[in-house]
């Protein structure tokens, strides 16, 4: 394992071992009868039916194995319009329409975050020139097996839709936005789930409570699941006795039809302006992408809470997760990789994010969507048409996909390694709900308060000026046990910017460095930051009077 690539002799010729093209006589490797239509891995040719079974099984096995989604539970499907999440929605749709034994038993809803707010880009920020686009486009389209499979994808938009983004702050006119919505709505209506189309501008009317982790008592998963199944079956039985088999179970519990769709209210012009101001002020594309993801996550969380969804499903594919893992690694989010890429993400407490598509490679998704004509919508994202080296995200994506063409096991290797990561911090026990959380990504802070060498590395990279200039540094350094040390509360209270930065994890701090001012951030973030600072300050004031044991409760309340 350790010596991969340190092979003997001259390196093997670069082109991938030419997989024998399926000949006429070759049959499907599964049923050995039908004519194969698609080659997934080297040499494994599947016929249409077997490929479908294989694909569906993967999806359902992922849900069944983890037993996280209880029967009758409300689940919000985060649909971006891209291939992976479209495929996921279709899987759920098919799963609900199947006959009773195999039917999925949760109650889905769909959310589409429309991030295509009308943003005016600062001139020259991202090169949109025609020639440049084509160069970067063709260079990221070297003919690897995975990509070759995607060539035929409707619209051929593959490098852009890859990020699974719902489109974003990327300078589109209101007409284009209306066009996207016109494409989105028929699909949503065809799916028939309750749906929510939300404009990204709505982050400006969120309440600070979004940023709070409302913890719920985690029951022992195994027993809880069984109990839920039992009660569900009993309920089903009653229903069955009452009104016959009836339509799909989900329909019964759905709210009245008039509530079923929350249509997009046209966002206020002021909010659009504020959002575009925010995104234009961000200096780098890397930070822009991160900010967009953060805001979108908050918005989805808000909608989920408002409508009583307890799970959110996202359509991250295996390829996407491998890329995300490496990207987050490079963004300094090493402590949270398991949260960011694992099957379930419980950081918000009451709403759990689930990634059921994580075993499907992008190639499989693309073929499935093509073969079974799953509709998807292309919405341009912030990084659409950006050159490869414009952001860490784009760089890592291009790197992984290129390496994948040379070493076809790259994605699965990275993905499998990610499964060995755990959510507890590296040293010591898992910090409970009492530990301070990052204001933006809501992960437990990974900044050392005290005397580790990392603390220094972090601080020099984030606050070079403070390190150099603050003479009171040393008194915090050897450090009390808590981050709210001797001089922090008092001296920095006046500076709201520093207050916010203090409440961020390492990765978010680095990102926020690319914002010249934190002022344009949505109000709910600023308000929550202020609240937390105040609370910490009060706590520091009261420290003398408080009995040691009560410390946590005050901090948490």
């Amino acid at each position, binding site marked *: *394992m*350790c*010596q*991969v*690539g*340190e*092979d*003997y*002799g001259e*390196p093997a010729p670069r082109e991938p071992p030419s997989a024998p093209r399926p000949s006429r006589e070759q049959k499907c490797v599964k049923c050995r009868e039908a004519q194969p239509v698609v080659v997934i891995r080297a040499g494994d040719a599947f016929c249409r039916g077997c490929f479908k079974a294989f694909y569906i099984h993967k999806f359902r096995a992922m849900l069944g194995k983890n037993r996280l989604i209880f029967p009758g539970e409300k689940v919000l499907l985060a649909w971006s319009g891209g291939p992976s999440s479209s495929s996921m929605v279709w899987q759920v749709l098919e799963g609900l329409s199947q006959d009773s034994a195999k039917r999925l038993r949760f109650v889905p809803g769909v959310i589409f975050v429309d991030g295509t707010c009308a943003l005016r880009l600062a001139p020259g920020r991202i090169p949109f020139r025609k020639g440049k686009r084509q160069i970067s486009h063709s260079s990221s389209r070297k003919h690897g097996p995975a990509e070759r499979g995607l060539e035929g994808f409707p619209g051929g938009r593959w490098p852009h839709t890859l990020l699974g983004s719902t489109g974003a702050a990327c300078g589109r006119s209101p007409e284009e936005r209306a066009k996207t919505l016109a494409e989105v709505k028929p699909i949503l209506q065809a799916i028939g789930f309750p749906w929510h189309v939300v404009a990204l501008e709505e982050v400006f009317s969120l309440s600070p409570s979004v940023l709070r982790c409302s913890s719920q008592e985690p029951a022992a998963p195994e027993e809880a699941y069984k109990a839920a199944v039992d009660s569900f079956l009993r309920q089903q039985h009653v229903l069955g006795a009452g009104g016959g088999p009836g339509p799909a179970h989900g329909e019964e519990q759905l709210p009245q039809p008039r509530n079923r769709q929350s249509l997009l209210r046209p966002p206020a012009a002021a909010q659009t302006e504020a959002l575009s101001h925010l995104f234009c002020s961000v200096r780098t594309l*890397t930070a822009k992408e991160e900010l967009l993801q953060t805001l979108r996550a908050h918005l989805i969380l808000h909608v989920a809470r408002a409508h009583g969804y307890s799970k959110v499903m996202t359509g991250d594919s295996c390829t996407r997760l491998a890329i995300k*893992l*490496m990207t987050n*690694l*490079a*963004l*300094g*989010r*090493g*402590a949270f*990789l*398991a949260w960011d890429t694992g099957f379930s993400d419980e950081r918000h407490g009451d709403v759990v994010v689930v990634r059921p598509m994580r075993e499907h490679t992008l190639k499989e998704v693309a073929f499935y969507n093509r073969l079974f004509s799953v509709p998807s919508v292309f919405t341009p994202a912030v990084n659409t048409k950006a050159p490869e*080296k*414009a952001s860490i995200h784009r*760089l*890592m994506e291009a*790197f992984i996909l290129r390496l994948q063409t040379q070493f076809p096991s790259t994605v699965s*290797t*990275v993905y*499998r*390694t990610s499964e*060995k*990561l*755990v959510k*507890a*911090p*590296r040293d010591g026990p898992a910090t409970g709900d009492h530990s301070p959380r990052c204001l933006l990504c809501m992960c437990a802070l*990974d900044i050392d308060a005290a*005397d*580790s*060498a*990392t*603390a*220094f*590395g*972090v601080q*020099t*990279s984030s606050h*070079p*000026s403070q*390190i*150099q200039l603050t*003479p009171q540094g*040393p008194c915090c*350094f*050897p450090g009390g046990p808590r981050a709210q040390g001797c001089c922090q509360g008092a001296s920095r209270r006046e500076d709201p910017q520093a207050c916010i930065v203090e409440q961020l994890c*390492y*990765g978010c701090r*680095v990102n926020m*460095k690319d914002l010249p001012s934190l002022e344009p951030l949505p109000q709910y973030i600023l308000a929550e930051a202020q609240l937390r600072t105040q609370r910490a300050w009060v706590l520091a004031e009261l420290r003398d009077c408080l009995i040691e044991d009560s410390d946590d409760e005050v901090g948490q309340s």
Partner: protein
Amino acid sequence: MNLPVTARRHGNNSTHSSAAPWARAQAQKINGAVHFGSSRKSKESVSGSCRPNGTSEPRAQKAKGAVHFGGSRKNNANVSRSRKLSGSPEPLAHPAALPHGILGAVGKEVPRPRGNGSLGVVTSVPGFRVVGSVDVPALRSAREKPTPPAMPAPPCTSCHAARAALRRPRSGQALCGACFCSAFEAEVLHTVLAGRLLPPGAAVAVGASGGKDSTVLAHVLRGLAPRLGISLQLVAVDEGIGGYRDAALAAVRRQAARWELPLTVVAYEDLFGGWTMDAVARSTAGSGRSRSCCTFCGVLRRRALEEGARRVGATHIVTGHNADDMAETVLMNFLRGDAGRLARGGGLGSPGEGGALPRCRPLQFASQKEVVLYAHFRRLDYFSEECVYAPEAFRGHARDLLKRLEAARPSAVLDLVHSAERLALAASARPPRPGACSRCGALASRALCQACALLDGLNRGRPRLAIGKGRRGLDEQATPGTPGDPAQTPTPKAVPTF
């Protein structure tokens, strides 16, 4: 703090210094104006008064350069003496408290003294190649923006006196050479202190290869040694690579002589029963250019360094791994799915379990660019050439990626190091507690340590045995091989196909 004291201090320094005679001469010439302070306030007030007002005057610049070197020597070599003299205890806990060489503007304007024996650049390596390859930001910005020559560089954001000579890659701060160097040293000091890497009284063996990292490490530690209360030795490993190692070792010898540090060279040939890397290379592939050379060389070098450090009675080993090395390693370990190493790596070093000497990497938070910048501004003489055996192919991918990431976001290297430190792997992925090698007693996770396993394979004429999947064949019998015998190339039968 008054001027006569500082001037006398300089006189002392320069007479005891062997580092830069030309700088000494100049410092003496102008030592009336020399000043450095341990507190920020006095520094600024005095520096304002003695700063020459015509900064573009070549004479004044020369003087500035000289002062900078005087000040910087104080930071490094003669710290304890100057502390005694000034009687002011300098707080070490915070980098901001470190004295800076205030007046120094060692930028491109300063005429660079050449042809001085003690500063000679290795002839095989043109000095400009080294600097050019790292793309020093100040030079680059000058190139991109064709500003009129009269336009001065921005002032240093730390001392506000000198002109900035570089922009720090990690923060974008514009600093003068002297401030950058003292910040760099302060950061290494902090890494060592905060991580409790080198306790006072430690006898430290610096793994010296002659390359930039170990050169900078030795230079910085030599300056910090009195404060840390440690003693330093250089330990170099002679791998026996003809045409490459000799030149590098010559650079190490020059460094040792200039810095008056004891040097010990341990050779593979003596330690490993006559095997040199050249012999290994012949044995492994026949062609002499096999990629697996790096596997052998890395494992054996680790062992050799340990052995050399023991021989000189060292209690700690330090190596010059920088942040880029760490970042590359973590990227690479993910790409090849090496969860065991991900779980093991990341810290600042190993505390020395199972009888092995404690190892650490004080430069772990310094990116390669900063290391090269430091070497540039301190005018260190180092050897930079690639080994004659082929570079590691897979690491090349990671290295390439890292360079691009760094271009997209300058702090990416440090972010990766931070990530590597915070990775939390499942308990099952962690390697079992290492035991001892049944042959040599060194730390080993298997029955034989990796060095013994590799040597075993070599001696039996089956060099691939201990590598990769070949490991399972360790118990097989094979014909013994001898080190220098090129006829003993592995038979095709012995090479498993995969």
